[in-house]
């Protein structure tokens, strides 16, 4: 059987339907019939195409990119006036969407500053207050809720975060049987997420914070696959935040509202920390388990902790050189003796 390669094919004067030797083939009569048939087929095809495309009617206004958005440059390439134009555009969008005129700034890193985070495992009680303070500070989507911090309840006898429970739900914490390990972006000095991004939408700033240009990200999620700390989040749907929940104090590279289809993650609250304030997760912490500061300043609290406490990083073997350290209360004895330092589970309550 030959479907389309008939040994005999012939054409009526106008149309071109093949007249196969196959008994089942159609024999077309006049030009007009052929024309009508083709016309009907073309109309049917167009109708089907329009039908297929019909969901696009529901596209949100913000999805229909403007020329302004389309030509907006990469963060690093914008001149001051271009940045101002972008800030104005974003402010207008936020105003329109949430009826709030935001205080949106592009805050640059400070000279001579490299931020690190230190988290005291002896103190953390697993209350997850940091998780929600972060969501409120950073204008994360509430539905579906995006959280940058994941607190893992750790069983005794291990420091391996993979053995922990992510979904513990207790009336009170701590329960005396576990300790708690909050995980968020570790702001690595050798960040695999930055290396893999095909469009340089994410990069490491001079103060050590890895940031994302939400207007540049193409949403391939390669960085999400590359992160050994599962620190990155993707906007699978358009973020939903009630107007009254919007934090109007915004940074271009930090907590301005995002759209669907882009990555986001912890940025050490850079709109706060770059002007000398502390991250929201630290401020809310009821036990003082969280410490933050400039590691280049030998007098800073974090520098002192790194020098004197028993510090470790998560998944050191991943080789990403995190700027997020975990430590226990115990100090190293001055002599450098080999005193054991058990995790002080009970002493966590404050």
């Amino acid at each position: 059987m030959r479907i389309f390669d008939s040994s005999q094919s012939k054409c009526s004067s106008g149309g071109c339907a093949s007249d196969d030797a196959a008994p089942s083939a159609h024999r077309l009569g006049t030009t007009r019939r052929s024309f009508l048939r083709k016309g009907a087929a073309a109309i049917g095809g167009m109708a089907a195409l329009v039908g297929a495309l019909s969901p696009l009617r529901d596209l949100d206004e913000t999805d229909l990119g403007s020329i302004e958005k389309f030509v907006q440059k990469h963060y690093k390439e914008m001149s001051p006036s271009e940045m101002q134009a972008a800030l104005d555009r974003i402010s207008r969008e936020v105003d329109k969407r949430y009826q709030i005129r935001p205080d949106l700034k592009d805050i640059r890193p400070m000279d001579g500053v490299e931020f690190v985070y230190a988290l005291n495992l002896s103190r953390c009680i697993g209350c997850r207050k940091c998780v929600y303070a972060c969501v409120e500070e950073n204008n994360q989507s509430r539905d579906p809720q995006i959280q940058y911090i994941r607190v893992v309840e750790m069983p005794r006898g291990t420091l391996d975060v993979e053995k922990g429970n992510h979904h513990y739900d207790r009336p009170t914490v701590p329960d005396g049987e576990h300790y708690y390990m909050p995980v968020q972006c570790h702001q690595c000095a050798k960040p695999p997420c930055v290396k893999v991004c095909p469009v340089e939408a994410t990069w490491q700033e001079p103060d050590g914070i890895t940031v994302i240009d939400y207007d540049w990200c193409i949403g391939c999620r390669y960085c999400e696959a590359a992160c050994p700390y599962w620190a990155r989040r993707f906007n699978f749907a358009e973020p939903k935040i009630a107007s009254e929940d919007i934090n109007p104090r915004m940074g271009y590279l930090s907590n301005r509202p995002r759209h669907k289809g882009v990555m986001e993650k912890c940025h050490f609250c850079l709109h706060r920390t770059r002007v000398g304030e502390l991250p929201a997760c630290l401020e809310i912490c009821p036990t003082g388990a969280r410490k933050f500061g400039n590691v280049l300043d030998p007098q800073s609290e974090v520098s002192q902790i790194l020098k004197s406490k028993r510090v470790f990083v998560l998944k050191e073997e991943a080789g990403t050189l995190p700027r997020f350290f975990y430590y226990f209360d115990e100090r190293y004895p001055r002599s450098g003796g080999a005193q054991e330092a058990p995790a002080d589970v009970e002493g966590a309550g404050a």
Partner: protein
Amino acid sequence: MKNYATFLWRCFRLSFVGDWRYQMWMLTLTAIALIGLNAYCRQLVYGLATTGMTDQVSWGLYIANFTFLVGMAAAAVMLVIPVYIYRNKELHDLVIFGELAAVSFIIMCLLFVVVDLGRPDRMHHLFLRFNFPLSMLTWDVIVLNGYLLLNLHICGYLIYCAYRKREPRKALFVVPFVLIAIVWAVSIHTVTAFLYVGLGARPFWNSAIIAPRFLASAFAAGPAFIILTLQVIGRFTSYAVPQKALMTLRQIVLVALTINVFLLLSEVFTEFYADTGHSASTHYLFFGIGNDRALVPWIWTSMGMTAVALLILYLPLARSLRYLNIACVLIIVGIWIEKGMGLIVPAFIPTPIGEIVEYRPTINEILVCLGIWAAGILLFTISVRITIPVLSGRLTIDRPYTMDPSPAGAEFTRVDVFGSERSTS
């Protein structure tokens, strides 16, 4: 230029010509492609939340299909290697079909990547800031598009020359490109493997054996696809499939599948015997962790299919086309599972910090995948539909196919890529 436009117009017209079975086939494919387009439009509006992907399992069916199809595209052209090395005459005219298949597969690959993007509207950012050579994804962009252009050139040039009744200048415009395409075929699959292998965060992928395994499995699934396709083409067109070619392909499949199974077993041994903390994903894939065992039936189906196919191929009964075809179908499906659900998804389970979230594709996501498959097969059908009359001299510049009845029993002209002249068999 005008001639070329006429050529394209005639090709376009020709793609609508065929008997009722052809029309039904094309209509069905078009309908499925449109349903897929519809599903994709929904995804555009509501975001990737319409898929089963999550922050935990952030790549799913799209990337799985992409990975599988890169292999198919690579293998279709790597068929040329035996032609070149062994001077195997039977395979010579298969090259053109291999290249046509490669073009369709690559276009499907690119579509699968595009539908996976959260912001397809920003694709032009690739031209503005291209993180080359650091990001393996940029390497993939280069090799995939380069491969597409190479194969488009080779097919397009040969077909257009036949249409113009010119002798193709093979030494200049064909052979060097075919040779480059062969090396390039290896590169597209290697680079795609490196995309995963390079991630230290995912122990399941961070294994040097993945790239060789990719090549081996592609060399099995690709020729298996060509074996089936050639028979379909032989059945429905004037092109007579040389039986010897099918048997040569069978041997390629046999060797490649054997190597693939060997590499797979090496990997399984390493994971389960050492049984380190890094084997969690493999455990999940083969046996599940706790009550989470969504992939277990998939991988064992794949294992079973591969085992049966291997058995058939090693027995003399694979010389019968019916059994060979069964083996080919088992191989294609088995490798599709192994490289899709079996390679992409488990790397995300558990997450790097130990959370287990399973992946279940949604209907919308499946429809998008089916749509892309239908569009790709549609494209391949059209390209074969045009190529055969042109290469057999029934559609030329002075003879529009549809206006002029061809002489009965027109023979297909062998396209001898490496030979100096075209010979009619």
